């Protein structure tokens, strides 16, 4: 087990390093630069000075300096937000996104899994059909539409939630629910698929034949197997949810980190692009590691094959 974790950790570090190198190549090969944004271009001398100041006149040097900083968790300055460092931006925005993403994933699992199990058990019933239709809606309706619809109903018409913003508990439910809907849909679908497979397998028949109660068979024996695909979906999904959704943030005015992915890329803000990508890929690798560990814990056969 520990050998597995160590190996995965090393591989994860290599992955993040490769992602960093790839992002760096993409960023420096983009046309345009952060010093030329806005209404008036700065004088060439000033631009040269700025580039020298941030070591951006020498790509290789910049690569090394940013890497050295990133290892020490110091991502350096941004080029578009004056007086802010990347660290400050991440420190202010990431906790917001992590809280929201965590809530969204919790909602998605707590609703998606039971719905998937029930629709697999009552296959073909009205519950199955209607939950499948809802799943398809969850996958098909863009989040900005569901978010706006929730806002209109709960904030404008019923006035039980604030219209947008951040800071109180009341600001949490609507964006968390909106963010969770697509994940919930996928989880319900994966659970249903896995559950149908599990319910048809021999060990379930054996358990039923031995006289175990159908409820225990479904929720303990079968769900344990059916949950595995959901678990592997949760790794990338959690990383995605916790690095924020620009769309949900824009609809609800949430100061999360998702907007910085978009703005940094649009502004060609090299430092911010690379630090947000590093945050994302680190989270991704970390969650995949957690999923691997949970996997071997649920299904010990896997650790032998790894």
């Amino acid at each position: 087990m520990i050998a597995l974790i160590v190996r995965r950790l090393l591989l994860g570090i290599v992955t993040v390093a490769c992602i960093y190198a790839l992002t760096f190549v993409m960023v420096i090969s983009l046309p345009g630069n952060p010093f030329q944004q806005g209404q008036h271009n700065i004088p060439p001398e000033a631009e040269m000075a700025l580039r020298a100041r941030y070591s951006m006149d020498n790509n290789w040097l910049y690569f090394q300096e940013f890497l050295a900083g990133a290892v020490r968790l110091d991502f350096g300055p941004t080029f578009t937000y004056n007086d802010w460092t990347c660290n400050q931006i991440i420190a202010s925005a990431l906790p917001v996104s992590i809280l929201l993403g965590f809530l969204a994933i919790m909602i998605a699992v707590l609703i998606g899994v039971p719905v998937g199990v029930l629709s697999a058990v009552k296959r073909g019933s009205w519950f199955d059909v209607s939950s499948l239709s809802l799943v398809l809606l969850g996958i098909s309706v863009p989040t900005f539409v569901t978010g706006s619809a929730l806002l209109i109903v709960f904030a404008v018409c019923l006035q039980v939630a604030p219209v947008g913003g951040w800071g109180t508990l009341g600001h949490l439910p609507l964006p968390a629910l909106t963010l969770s809907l697509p994940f919930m849909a996928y989880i319900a679908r994966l659970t249903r698929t896995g559950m149908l497979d599990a319910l048809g397998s021999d060990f379930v028949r054996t358990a039923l034949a031995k006289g175990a109660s159908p409820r225990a068979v479904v929720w303990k024996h079968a769900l344990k197997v059916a949950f595995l695909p959901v678990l592997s979906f949760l790794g990338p999904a959690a990383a995605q949810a916790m690095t924020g959704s620009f769309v949900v943030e824009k609809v609800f005015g949430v100061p999360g980190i998702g907007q910085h992915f978009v703005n940094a890329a649009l502004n060609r803000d090299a430092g911010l692009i690379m630090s947000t990508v590093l945050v994302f890929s680190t989270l991704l690798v970390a969650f995949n590691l957690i999923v691997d560990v949970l996997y071997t814990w649920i299904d010990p056969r896997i650790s032998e094959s790894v």
Partner: protein
Amino acid sequence: MGMQSDNERTEPQALARADGSRPGAPGKPAARYGTPWRRFAHNRLTQVSAALLTVFVVTSLVTLPFSLRWYNVQELDKAVRHTPAFSPVVSYGHYVQRVTGRSGPGLSAQAEACGSVAHRASSWFGHDDLGRSLFYRVLPGFLVSLGIGLAAAGIAVVIGATWGAVAALTGGRVDLLMMRIVDVIYGLPYILMVILLKIALTRPLTALFAGHTKYADMVILFLAIGGVSWLTMARVIRGQVLSLRSQPFVEAARASGAGSVYILRQHVLPNLVGPIITYAALVIPQAVLQESFLSFLGIGVQQPTPSLGRLAADGVEAVNTFVGYWWLITFPCAILVLTLIALNFIGDGLRDAFDPKSSEAMLV
């Protein structure tokens, strides 16, 4: 790299499980009757979805002459701006005078009769804040969205299938390297990739389309979306080719002296058609949805070109300022959602048809 196995587990279940065993393969009895295409054609939900999409496509194509003329005609008259759906406001004579007076020669006699109907239709979905007919924006918008979806899927197929097949057929270090590259790109945030691709492509393509910014814009958009949608395709195809190569019937062919080109053409390629078509069909709705997100962020299709995502995003903005403008969000969103659901049903139908083993578990 640790991520590979994790990501492989997250792929669409049916495709991940498609281990090359299909009804035609020896040793596996056909789970249902007929060829994949016949199974596909007999699926009730895919029939309904295909019919719905056909209606949308035909309507958009038939009205295309009118929508091309009217999609950007603004009626800044107070009486026309924000007119609700189903309430005609401008008389036809007034309209023809305004419209044809501006956009070239007038209509012929038959065209005028036709135009009268077409003009009545223009008020069915109401007007937006610039007095433009939503009906004649939604219909070409549907075509633009569908076109972006199809083009992105095409790009995903070309890059992804080639990448996966080359990796699997070459094997060894090349295979390892190619799949590691896919792993690493998987580790990048999707939206960032699309934006960076879009920025990188903008300059060369705008130069290529000299002057036609509208078209350059759309091409950039589907190239960017397609350029990030090929990863899963590459993995699926690689897995498929690898498992096909070790199938008994391929071994039998090799044992009886068949060359590798013959095996590729006779055994591998025909068995790749199913997964390629299935996955391509599932990329289309994803690409349409991605376009709507990009439009909502203001980096999708640029005004005044309509797309379903652009119109839905504009509608959301309009409704956020005043809830009374319900038609601006209802019609684009309804068409968008219906299109996406129909496309998803068709994708699921294809998956069921080409991989009957999974049909048990998938939708319907």
